[in-house]
Structures are given as C-alpha cells and as structure tokens.
C-alpha cells in the first residue's frame, strides 16, 4: 500500500514559500495509515520552487517527498494541479491520496477522484486502516451526525479536516526528494488563479485557528465587535460570528460559523452573546473547549459549553481581556 499525502504550500508575505500547517497534518495522517495498513507514506509537493522546502516533510512521518516543481505552477490552477497530482498517483502506483480539507484541497480532491475513478471521503475526522481497507469517519449535517464511510474502489481519495490530525512530535530528519516529470500544456490552465489577496493579515483564518472568539446578535451592533476582536487578538485567535450577526450586516459572510457558514474545531471556542441556534451549534460543538457568555441562562449554547458565565458580555469581556492580559504578561 502506498499512501500519498498532498503537502500544501503557500507563499507568505514575510516567510516566503512554506508548508501550511495542514501539509504536516496530511503527512502525519498518511504515516499513521501506512503503519496500520502495512504500507509506505509518501509526500507530494506541487508548485514553483517547492523542491527547496520538500526535505522539511521528513520530520512529519514521510521519508520520501516527490516534487512537481514548475514555474507555471506558481499560482494555483485547479485543472493543472489536479492533472499533475493524478499523474503522480498513477506513476507511483499509489493506492490512497490524502489532501487537507482546505480551500485548495476541497477544490482539488473531487477532480483527482474523478480522474482516478476513486471514491472520495471528504473532510474526515478519523481514519482507520484495516485489512487493506480504509474506514473513514466524517461529520455530516454540519456535525449533527457522524458517518463511517468505506471506500469501495481500489484507489481512494481522502480529505482531512484541519486541526484534527495534529502531528504529535517532530524529529529533524530530512525527507529525500525526487522530482517527477511534468507534462502540462496551455489547455491545462483553462482555470487559473491570477491574484491572491489575504485580507486578515495577522489574524488566523477561522478554519485554521486554534482559538476563536465569536459574537452574536446579543452584541447589539457592529461597533461592539471591537471587544471581540480585542480578546481574539490577545489570544492570537480568529473572530467568528453567528448567522444573526452576519445577516444583520455586522460582519462579513466569511466570518459566519454554523451550518451555512464554516464548521470549526478549534481548541477553544468562546461564544459571546450567542444563544446557540441548532445551526450554529452544528458548526462549532466539536471544539475541544467551549466558553459561553450569555445573559439568558436557558440559552442552548450552555448545553455545549464547558464553562459558562450567565451575565452581561459588555461587563465580562473587557474584564476577561484585562485579566488575560495580566496572565499572559501582555500588560
């Protein structure tokens, strides 16, 4: 059994080209599966100049990284990336491909699966290799239920939810790197990215953040999200919002947490003045620790909260920021 992990890399403003956290999650998940299935985990890196960073996968469970390094792949293209990934899987005779359920991975996986005529298990939160098969567990209905999926085709494509397969330890050994031939022509770029604009520099994205502070209708207006942002920044977290707050126009759509927004699983989720409609709970109740602050003691959010304060957010949040600032030595 050969299991290929697609290791996503991105250009960052200061750091330059580097692997995203989800790249290491994918290689780690692949290496665990390889142990269970008695196989080998391989890294696959696609992009421009990625050969230089590929050895860095070594510490995360793969000894060998294959590289598709080409100037034309400097910007993402769903058509071209899918083509080179599927070609790599074929040429390596790999059985399983693991991609992160990131914006890029979710866009690529269905194409790669269709090219390979492989079953797709998307956004998995657990994987188990057993007798040559992979049993994948994934949330459905935004987390209101879980299903176990058996991929019946020989080749299998899996995407894994960010923040779930967190690599436990890192050793320093470098992966050996082998370049794969590239066969691309102009028609492979019928869809291509021409520009990338990161709007929230300094604040992590909701789906990647390990801490999220979210605000709801109880905040009364967009101006009151300032204290939410302050608390989030203090903790190095992301800012989220309930559908009510988004529909009221207080926050942009991409801040929305819930069934028609983002499904998140951070280490800490702080819900401020959010009552906890079932569609919101679906999107965040798999968070490891949940704090709820709400005036209404009967608010459903308290049913999923580990710690709750039944009180006024306008009094409690500034106090929390003040105390955390002290505790974190950021005074």
């Amino acid at each position, binding site marked *: 059994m050969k299991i290929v992990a697609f290791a996503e890399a991105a250009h960052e403003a200061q750091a330059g080209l580097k692997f995203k956290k989800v790249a290491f999650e994918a290689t780690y998940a692949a290496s665990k599966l390889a142990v269970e299935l008695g196989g080998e985990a391989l890294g696959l890196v696609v992009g421009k100049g990625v050969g230089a960073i590929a050895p860095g996968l070594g510490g995360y469970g793969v000894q060998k990284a294959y590289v598709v390094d080409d100037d034309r792949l400097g910007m993402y293209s769903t058509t071209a990336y*899918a083509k080179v990934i599927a070609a790599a899987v074929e040429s390596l005779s790999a059985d399983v491909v693991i991609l992160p359920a990131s914006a890029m991975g979710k866009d690529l996986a*269905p194409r790669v699966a*269709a090219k390979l005529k492989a079953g797709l298990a998307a956004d998995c939160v657990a994987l188990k290799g057993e007798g040559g098969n992979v049993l994948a567990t994934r949330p459905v209905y935004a987390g209101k*239920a879980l299903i176990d*999926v058996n991929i019946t085709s020989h080749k299998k494509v899996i995407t894994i939810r960010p923040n779930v397969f967190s690599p436990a330890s890192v050793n320093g050994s470098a992966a050996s790197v082998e370049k794969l031939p590239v066969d691309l022509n102009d028609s492979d770029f*019928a869809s291509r990215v021409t520009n990338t604009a990161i709007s929230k520099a300094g604040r992590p994205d909701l789906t990647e953040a390990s801490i999220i502070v979210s605000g709801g209708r109880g905040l009364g207006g967009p101006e009151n999200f300032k204290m939410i942002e302050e608390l989030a920044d203090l903790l190095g977290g992301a800012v989220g919002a309930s559908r009510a707050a988004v529909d009221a126009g207080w926050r942009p759509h991409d801040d929305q947490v819930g069934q028609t927004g983002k499904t998140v699983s951070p280490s800490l989720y702080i819900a401020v003045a959010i009552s906890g409609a079932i569609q919101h709970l679906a999107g965040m109740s798999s968070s490891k620790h949940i704090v709820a602050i709400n005036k209404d003691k009967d608010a459903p959010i308290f049913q999923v909260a580990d710690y709750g304060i039944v009180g006024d957010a306008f009094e409690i949040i500034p106090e929390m920021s003040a*105390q955390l600032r002290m*505790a974190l030595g950021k005074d």
Partner: protein
Amino acid sequence: MKLFVCVNQVPDTETRVKVGQDGKTIDRSEINLILNPYDEFAVEAALQLKDKFGGEVTYVSAGNDSHKEVIRKALAMGGDKGIHIKAENAGDSYSVASMLTGALKDAGADIIFFGKQSIDYDDSAVGTMVAEMLGLPSASVVVKLDVDAGAKKVVCEREIEGGKETVELTLPCVISAQKGLNEPRYPSLKGIMAAKSKPIQEITPSAVESLTEVTAMRKPAPKEQGKILGTDKTAVPELVRLLHEEAKIF
C-alpha cells in the same frame, strides 16, 4: 447564454438529526425539505446572467420524486425549465456527478452552476467532479463573478483561508456559488404561479455507481454537563484559571 443550475433537496438547517432505522441514514419522518441554501446563490447568479445576456436557465436535479419540488422552487424564482433525473437513491458524490454529467454532456451549456456544497452530506464535491467529468474548467466557493460572454471569459473571486483569490476561466465552465455572491430574490406570487406550467423533463440515468458506502451513522457523543461559573465579572478569575489549568489553553 445557455445556463444550467444543478439543485439539490436537503433537510432544513433547523433539523434535529435522528439516526434512522437502518443505522446509516437520517430518520426522514419529521423533516422539512428545502432547496439547498447555497443553491439559491447559484440560481440567482444564473438569473442575473440571463437578465444581462439573454438565453435560458435550466435546473437539473438528481434524486427521488420529491426533488421536483426544488426544481419548482427554483423555477418560481425565475428561469425556463427543469430536468429531473429520476433516482430513488442518488448514491454518493461520484454517482450524483455521473448522473448530472450524463444529462449535461450534450446540452451545450455555457455555464453550469452549483451551490458550493449541499448542507446534508457536506462533501463540496459534486460540482467540481462534474467539471472534471465534462472536461471543463471550474471555480468553487465563488463570491464574485464577472462574465464576458463575447470574449468567452470569466473572472471570479473565490474564498480561501483568510482572503480571496482571483480566478480566470474560459467558457464553458462550472461555477460553485458561496454565500455573499449575491442576494437571492424571493419568488413572487406571479413567479410561483408561472412555475407550475414550466416544463420539467424526466430522464432515467443509465447506471448509478457509487464508489463509497456508508456503513454506520451515529450522533456525536454528548458533551458532559459544563460548569456555570457565575453571573457577573467576579466569575472571570475562575474562568481564566480554568482555561489555564484545566483546558491548558495558555
């Protein structure tokens, strides 16, 4: 322009999921079925293009007979006709994508729209799979769309982690719509009445093939009862202590 929108029927977001008797799917006895919310943005995008460039909008849905309801709902918003691919059990994303591809491959579509995901199985897969099966370029999670029909070119923006990327595509193509792309119109009474007489063609798929099977469905383990720490800011020190010592957040 020849515009197609693939629509799906899903339980509404208020649904309390109960696992059905088979232990693999949800109990459908007390659920309210709706047009998948993301598909509304896809419908609106297609209707706006028809308003601008002329042409026709066709809705396609694969599934059991009740899927006709979401085709009617979309037709009430606007558009011209529907295609219902009859399948008692539509199967997994590969199976649905294969059926839609069968219906669309000789249709001469300029743009095929999808919602970015169905809010039941949350695969975010069918639209991009159809694109691949038809050999078309695609963009998913699209929040801004600019179509140049003359130059056969589309420039759009898709949501990525912490920002957006601009994608250029050639026509024909597949676009998956995200919330924020537009404000879907409400069906007018006139629209609802007109929808009743718009044609819905029924077709039978050649073969339905799934490459995955669901072996079990269950509810997530219930959370343990949490602690209420207080009713005002005097509870904050205890919260900070617990976040530090018990949750080990910092």
